Structure formats: C-alpha cells, structure tokens
C-alpha cells in the first residue's frame, strides 16, 4: 500500500532534479496566474459571479436526474442522438460503434480531458482507427507518446527545443529550429491535412444546456470547429456534471472560464451546437464514471462543480514546482488531488499530502470549490482507512503526544534545542527530507515561552 504513498514526492523528486527546468516551469505557470489576476481585477462583479456559479452548480447537481432527462429530451428533439455510459469502457465502446457504423477510419479530436480519463485514444488505435489530437499542445504530447501534464496547457512541461526536435523528426521542420511561430505554422499545415482527410470529429463539452439540449465547446485554436464542420459526424463526449439549467447561465460561466484559465476575457471560439449541423450527425455521450458516487459524498460533492479551468494548478506552489506528471493522474493539481483519492484512495493516497494547505486554490477557483478544506478532510479519511504511510503515522502519533502535553512539550523542546546546537548533523543529514535544499538558523538557547516569562509577562500585568 505504501508503494504509492511515495509516488508524488518521488516523481516530484525526479522533476526538481533538473533545477533550471523546474524553475522555468514554475515561472511559466506563474505568468499565467498573473494574466488571470489582471483579467479578474477588471471585473468588479467577480465575486458575485463566483457565488452565482457555485449556486447554479449546487442547484443543478441536486436535481441532476431531472436536468439530464430534460437535456436528453431536448437534444433528441433537435436531432442529436444521446448515449449513456456508466464507465470508461462503455464510453469507448459507444464511440467505436458510432465510428464503425459510419465506416470512419480517420478521426480528429479536440482537447477533452474526459477522453483522456477514458483512455479513448489507445482503445480506438487498438481497433485500427487513426486518432489525431488537434490541439497543438495535445498533438505535441501525442507525438511524444505522453499524456498532458496540465488540463488547459497540455505541453506546459515541454521546452521549445524539445518541440523543435520532435517536429524535426515527425513534421520535417528544420533541424534546431525553435521559434514558436515557425513550429506552430508547421503544425498548422500538418493538421490541416488531417482535418481535410478526417471522417469524424470528436470534441469534449464545456457546458450542456438542459433547457435547450444544446452543448457549448470553448477553444482558442479553432481546432474543435474545423474538426466538426468538415467531417459529417460529430461525437461530443461529456461528463454528466457539465449540465447547466438555462442558456442565460452560460453568461456567468463564460465570463469566469477563460479569465481563470488563461487570462483571456473569453476563448477565441465559443461554439454552440443545437442538434446536428446540415447534412451531419451529432452524437452526445453522457458519462458517469464515478461522478454519481462523488455526488453521494457530501464532503466532496462540490468537486463536481469543477469547470476544468486549471486556475488551481497555475497557482499551486506544489504543482508549479513538481509538474503535472508527478501526480500520475489525468487531472493533476489541487482538483486532481481531490478527485482521484476520492475515487481510489489506496492508489492515490499521496496526493492530498502534495499540498501546503496554503488555500490559494480555493481563492482562485471560479466556482468557489473549497479545495483545501477537501484536501484536509481527505488526509484524515486516508488515515482512518489505514492508507497513511507508516512514517507519517509514527510522526503524527508522536507529534500528537508532544503537542498534547505542556510538560512533555517543554522537555522535548529543551532536548531538541540542546541536540540541535551540539549535534546538528543528527538532523542535517540525507535521511531528513526536510533538510534537503534547506538550512536552519542555529537553535536558540531559550524557548519562546521562557523568553516571554522573563521579558514581557511583568510589563503586561
């Protein structure tokens, strides 16, 4: 069980061993966070919007059965075909059967964390279908045979030199070329061919409107739109939590989403699909895959409100310094550290501890999900389930004892100061992870308590 407990920190250890790259990663994400702040400060009613968004989601999740049925009925009336999938396997089989019915061999897919969650690409490839990720960042990680390290910025962990080498190898760009404009142009031309040759387009869904049966997809590159306006078949894959009741609720979420995600006032393209386009078919797959059981858990159900903006990742001091792949999950960062352990606590028990409880995630979350409270609650739950690493259990037990008794605390404090002054190497050695890359000031002779009684107590009487 403890094999995974070390997971995040050991993988993060590998990431930070390249100190230049780790610093670069940290500052690249902080740059996005600063862009977000600029946009957010431009909207005086930001807090009202967050409250409204949270209230809309709470309302919808409470009556999710009714809204799902309303959505299904309206979407069907518009001519879309609605499918229901309980888990990833069923989802993938539905996608495959639709493609098979159309004899579709070549598929273009825009960014969708849900299809990553379902591992749709490897499944379709096994069935002999060619799937091309068309978001530039996703195409980069696909060519590298990796997974995205961030839900909005899939290739944030990759340097332009690495992209240059990759494109030289796969797209025939000039050797050593690293200019982002040049590389993007090469990808544009390469992917245009894929769009024109595609038999079907797969997209995610950002919002689904219950009262109309419509879906909304937000992108910057235009890849989702090209992918579904050229082929005659559009498959839209969505989690059941993407529903919102009314069209006008979109205003709230669209004002929050791109500002939080990338510091843009809105994404370049915000596409609304109501039924199939002319001469085309639209299939919408509603996926559960653990969402109903998340809804059952009152401590964590607000995590269902997430609109996948990535703001909590960009701001998280642990995410920025450890990279998305350290989490070993499709959704990393603070929200991933809630979602994954809630569905599988034994595998992901290290994630809620990859957190300093600074609370920055909760502050930036546009839907006001209490992320750091949930992470804190999860830690306790992991302990109660017996999934806490032994070292942590011992440390917690001892700390609890020491902090629970004033006299013991004084004795241990005195001993500690004495040892730290006389034998610093007892602490400062390679076995103590807390001393890695850190230095401590010399221990004082006196505790604060002793100093206070000597110096201040009298004066304040």
């Amino acid at each position: 069980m403890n094999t995974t407990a070390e997971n995040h920190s050991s993988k993060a250890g590998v990431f930070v061993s390249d100190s230049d790259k780790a610093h670069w990663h940290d500052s690249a994400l902080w740059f996005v966070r600063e862009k977000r702040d600029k946009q957010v400060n431009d909207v005086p009613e930001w807090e009202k919007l967050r409250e409204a968004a949270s209230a809309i989601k709470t309302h919808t999740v409470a009556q999710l059965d009714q809204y799902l049925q309303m959505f299904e009925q309206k979407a069907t009336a518009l001519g879309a075909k609605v499918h229901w999938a309980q888990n990833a396997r069923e989802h993938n089989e539905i996608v495959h059967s639709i493609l098979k019915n159309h004899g579709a061999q070549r598929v273009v897919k825009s960014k969708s964390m849900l299809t990553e969650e379902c591992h749709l690409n490897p499944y379709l490839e096994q069935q002999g279908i060619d799937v091309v990720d068309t978001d530039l960042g996703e195409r980069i990680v696909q060519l590298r045979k990796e997974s995205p390290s961030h839900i909005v910025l899939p290739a944030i962990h990759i340097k332009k030199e690495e992209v240059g080498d990759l494109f030289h190898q796969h797209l025939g760009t000039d050797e050593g070329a690293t200019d982002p404009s040049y590389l993007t142009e090469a990808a544009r031309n390469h992917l245009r061919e894929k769009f024109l040759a595609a038999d079907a387009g797969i997209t995610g869904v950002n919002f689904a409107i219950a009262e109309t049966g419509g879906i909304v997809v937000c992108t910057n590159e235009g890849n989702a739109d090209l992918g579904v306006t050229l082929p005659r078949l559009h498959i839209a894959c969505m989690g059941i939590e993407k529903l919102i009741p009314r069209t006008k609720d979109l205003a709230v979420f669209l004002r929050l989403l791109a500002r939080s995600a990338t510091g843009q006032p809105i994404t370049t393209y915000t596409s609304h699909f109501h039924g199939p386009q002319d001469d085309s078919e639209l299939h919408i797959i509603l996926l559960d895959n653990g969402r109903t059981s998340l809804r059952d858990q009152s401590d964590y159900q607000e995590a269902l409100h997430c609109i996948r903006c990535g703001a909590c990742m960009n701001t998280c001091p642990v995410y920025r310094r450890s990279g998305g792949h350290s989490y070993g999950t499709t959704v990393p960062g603070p929200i991933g550290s809630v979602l994954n352990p809630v569905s599988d606590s034994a595998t992901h028990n290290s994630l809620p501890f990859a957190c300093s409880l600074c609370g920055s995630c909760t502050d930036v979350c546009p839907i006001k999900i209490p992320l750091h409270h949930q992470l804190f609650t999860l830690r306790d739950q992991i302990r109660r389930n017996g999934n806490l690493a032994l070292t942590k259990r011992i440390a917690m037990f001892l700390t609890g004892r020491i902090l629970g008794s004033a006299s013991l605390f004084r004795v241990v404090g005195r001993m500690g100061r004495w040892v730290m002054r006389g034998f610093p190497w007892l602490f400062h050695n390679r076995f103590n992870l807390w001393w890695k890359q850190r230095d401590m000031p010399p221990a004082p002779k006196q505790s604060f308590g002793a100093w206070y009684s000597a110096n201040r107590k009298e004066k304040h009487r």
Partner: protein
Amino acid sequence: MNSREKILSRIRNRKMMETALPDLSRKLTTWDDPIGRFRETVSAVGGHTERLSDPSLLPSVIEKLDDYQAASRVASNSFIAKLDLDDLTRSASPHSLADIDLFIADGDIGVAENGAIWVTDEKLVHNAALFITQHLILTVYGSAIVNNMHEAYEKIDPQESHFGVFISGPSKTADIEQSLVIGAHGARSLMVYIVDDSETGESE
C-alpha cells in the same frame, strides 16, 4: 436496467436539498461607450476594428485591404457588405473551401467586455468557412454592441440555430512555452467593421 436507468436511479437514490437558482439581474458593469470598449477589447485579443458611417462604404474599404489584394480566393456570405463575390454553394463539399484566403460574414451582436462577435449558421452557407479561411472579416452594426455576456444572451437565442459561435479575435495558441502565436488552426487575422446604422446614434 440499462445504463441510462442505472445512472438516473443512482442520482435519485441520493436526494439532495433543493436550492434556488441565483438571480442574475443585479447590477453588472456597463460602459458609457460600449463601442469604444468593444474596439479596445477586440484589439487586445489580437483583432482590428474600423468604424464605418455607412454600410455602402464596405466594398471599397475591403477592396483596399492588403489581405484582399493578396488573396487569390475571396468569398463572402455578408449581406451587409453587398459584395459581388463568390458566395459559396451549399451543394459543394466544405472541403472545397480549403483554398479560401479571405472570408467575409456578418455578426449579429458584439460584446464590449470581451470583444466577442456572435455569428450563426443562418447567415452562412458553410460553417467551416469561418474557420478554414486564412483571414476573416466580420461586420456588426454599431447598435448591436452590448455591454456584457448577460445582455448578449438576452438578445440572442442560440437554440434557434444549429450552430452559433462567439468569435473573439483571430485563432491563437500559446502551447509552445507560453509564447502567443496568432494563427493556430483558424483564421490568422480578424478585421471587424462596426457599421453605423440608423439606430446607432440614438441608442445612447
């Protein structure tokens, strides 16, 4: 029980307290000069704007553009611009649009807070034209610029079209080291003509 029933019954088995939907009508930011703000925002997201006092000026203005001069294929679905151009044929496959250099279409409304312009399939022969063209020109009436997204959704009804899209600026990406590159998969540039109509002057 099929998957649909199973999912729905799992939800029904866990009753949650019903809460009200929020009232979205409280005071929201507006601008004294929404058109001015709209123009600022469009340029902040990488597009360009020009204000014209009369729709009849459009053809001559467009014909002077570098993108127009350099284009080997120009197409238009604009009713406002009244250009004597290829207006695309519905029976042709959208793949036949791959060589369009410049495409012109009409937007229904513009949004001051984010520079977005609402375009629907009712005014397009092929939806793909908006995205496959190298350069895009959109027109919008000055009287159709609203302050924010709340006002936008009061004016439009997306369910009336199979396809409708808010377009804010040209296509872009920052997926390589966060450096912004304009012209990812969609249009490499966006020019917006704000055309004064009879109502524009009186709307304030």
